[in-house]
């Protein structure tokens, strides 16, 4: 990987940020998570994320900015945990001989996290419509009835959902 001098400068900037801030940020993360290992992991992820951003964005040397980045990672972490817990709940309710294999669980869970990440970004009503049609298999009429919207709104929601999930576009 070629390092331009501006990239090197930016990496150095991140390194200084880390040295000056890692202590308070780590203990702030610990307060949120209650676990040292997790706090250390997320601290690491926070600065990794900053390193990836170097090319396009301005990095502020401020507590609030660092916390914002860390907080997004925390949010991701908790959402992932929620998914894992919900998944485990389901599996634990199954009869033993019907339970999915370990590999299957890992694969399915990974997919769910990916899909959930995209669905997250949708507005609540758009998300509801999309889940009703795509996951529950309701037809447009039934979906429209259940959500008290018109069929053309159902179609509009589905289109919006695809634009957001596939292209990161919010219309």
């Amino acid at each position: 990987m070629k390092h331009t001098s501006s990239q090197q400068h930016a990496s150095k900037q991140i390194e200084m940020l880390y040295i000056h801030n890692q202590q308070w940020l780590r203990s702030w993360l610990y307060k949120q998570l209650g676990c040292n290992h997790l706090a250390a992991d997320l601290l690491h992820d926070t600065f990794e994320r900053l390193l990836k951003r170097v090319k396009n964005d301005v990095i502020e040397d401020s507590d609030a900015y660092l916390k914002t980045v860390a907080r997004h990672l925390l949010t991701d972490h908790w959402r992932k945990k929620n998914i894992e817990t919900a998944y485990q709940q389901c599996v634990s309710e199954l009869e033993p001989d019907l339970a999915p294999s370990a590999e299957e669980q890992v694969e399915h869970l990974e997919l769910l996290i990916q899909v959930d990440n995209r669905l997250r970004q949708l507005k609540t009503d758009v998300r509801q419509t999309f889940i009703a049609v795509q996951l529950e298999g309701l037809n447009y009429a039934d979906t429209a009835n259940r959500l008290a919207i018109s069929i053309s709104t159902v179609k509009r929601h589905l289109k919006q959902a695809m634009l957001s999930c596939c292209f990161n576009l919010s219309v």
Partner: protein
Amino acid sequence: MRSLNESTIPITIAEEAADWWLELQNSDNQSLTQQRISSWRQQSSVHDEAWQKIAAFDMMLNDINAPQRRPISQHVLSQPSRGPRRQLLKSLFGLAVIGSTPWFIGSPVTHQQNKTIATKVGEHRSWTLANGVEVHLNTDTIIEIDETNTLMTLVLKQGEVAIITHAEQHPQQLLKVTTAIGDITPIGTHFIVRQHPEQIQVTLLEGQVNVSDKHSLRSWTLQENQAMTLTASGEMSMFKANTQTLAWQTGILIVSDMPLNSFVSELSRYHHAFIRYEPQIANLRVSGSYPTDDLAAVMNAVSRALNLNYTKRFGIWFHLSEKK
């Protein structure tokens, strides 16, 4: 803060691709529609790329909808957060179905949602709601969530909740926390609201909040690291925030120079237990960090520190007394 698309697809082409996907979903003649999509794709490499993104996501959806996976996927994805008393859909493989209303899936008639989340005594739990708001409930707390497209109201019925909002995520939906005594409106913040029997305490850690008195319609703005109490009769006092207020999220109760009677009150929130003490020791001072989930350990530590005896009966009855 989404990562930027490496190669951004122009909106018109993205929309066309989405339209084609919709058409394919509803088409009576799949092969004809596929042909037309094929022609559309050939217009340029950007068209082709757009369709590939659609197809990739469509494939993910198909994967999670595989017969064995579908009921689990439905359950997991339709609830953005855990609920405390939920029955699972046992619709797998023809087993009996126990109905459950997943969160934020519209109920038959109305857009408005009315959900309650609660923690048991000694429990603390965290949820991230669909709009990105994080709620962290301390022991013995009940919150009712009321939601429309433009406003989410969290009604704190009892207990204590910490809330972290990301105003930039859903700017079109406001957030409000209401209690019997006053309302709290945050702006991109991290704050705690606690309901005491006759007053509320709001502690602001980051950002800004507005607190308004339900009865007198007065309101105040808290700045970072400020806290205030508001009583039912309208008395208000503001003071510097104590970050120890947040320690419960990690299962720790931190106190400095707190009289024993208050300490016992605080501790009792976390346990179904009776803690009694002799009247003459009520004002002894307690300091330190104590786990909220191990009452015996706390009793041990406190009695050692203050040179007291404690007796334990029936597993739930503790009595602190002077050493004779």
